[in-house]
């Protein structure tokens, strides 16, 4: 099941509604549902921030594959930008040195089981997987 969303922060409510429907349909537990919501929000908002140009669309798909949810975000008509390769944020410093930049991707890396990027035909495609029973 896939749906297209305008690449804008204003789409977030509709994105969450779509995810809630799909996660309920797949009987995802609360921890898996939280992780997918968070990962999609972080990735979608990064796409809004970093993909300049026209307000074109992002297609989000949620499928079940065995014991895993497979979530795909297709960012249409963008330059290549591999979020999965972003340097790890330093989470060890004191308060004054802590930053929010990079924190979202850190959370995604830690909270999902797989996190991949590929670039095809002008589209940036991110795939994440999450075990359902978690």
């Amino acid at each position, binding site marked *: 099941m896939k749906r297209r969303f305008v690449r804008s922060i204003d789409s977030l409510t509709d994105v969450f509604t779509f995810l809630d429907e799909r996660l309920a349909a797949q009987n995802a537990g609360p921890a898996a549902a939280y992780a997918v919501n968070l990962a999609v929000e972080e990735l979608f908002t990064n796409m809004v921030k970093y993909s300049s140009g026209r307000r074109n669309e992002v297609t989000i798909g949620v499928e079940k594959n065995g014991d895993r949810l497979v979530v795909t975000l297709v960012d249409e008509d963008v330059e290549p930008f591999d979020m999965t390769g972003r340097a790890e944020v330093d989470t060890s410093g004191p308060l004054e040195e802590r930053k*929010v930049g990079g924190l*979202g991707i850190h*959370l995604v890396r830690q909270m999902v089981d797989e996190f991949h990027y590929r670039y095809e035909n002008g589209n940036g495609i991110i795939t994440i997987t999450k075990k359902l029973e978690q």
Partner: protein
Amino acid sequence: MLAILLKDDGEVTLSGRFDASQVDAADAVFDRLMTTTRVNFRDLDYISSAGLGVLLKTQKRLSGLGHNLILTHMNKLVRDVFRIARFDVVFRIEEGT
């Protein structure tokens, strides 16, 4: 949707979802805090890095004034996000629900 209530006793209560669409509304409340403030998470279901950013910015500003935020009553899933972000070492988090 996020609801933020600044109570008469100075405590802030959060309920709902603290996501990237709620940053401006949250800033409007947190930017007004000038002293040590308890933030009650009991009815908060969800927070992402956008919400963490509002809290971090506020904690840094208050720290410069000799004050801080005290975060209370987090549910387990929200607490996990603080742990993974290692925000549990830069905030005082009171356990218990």
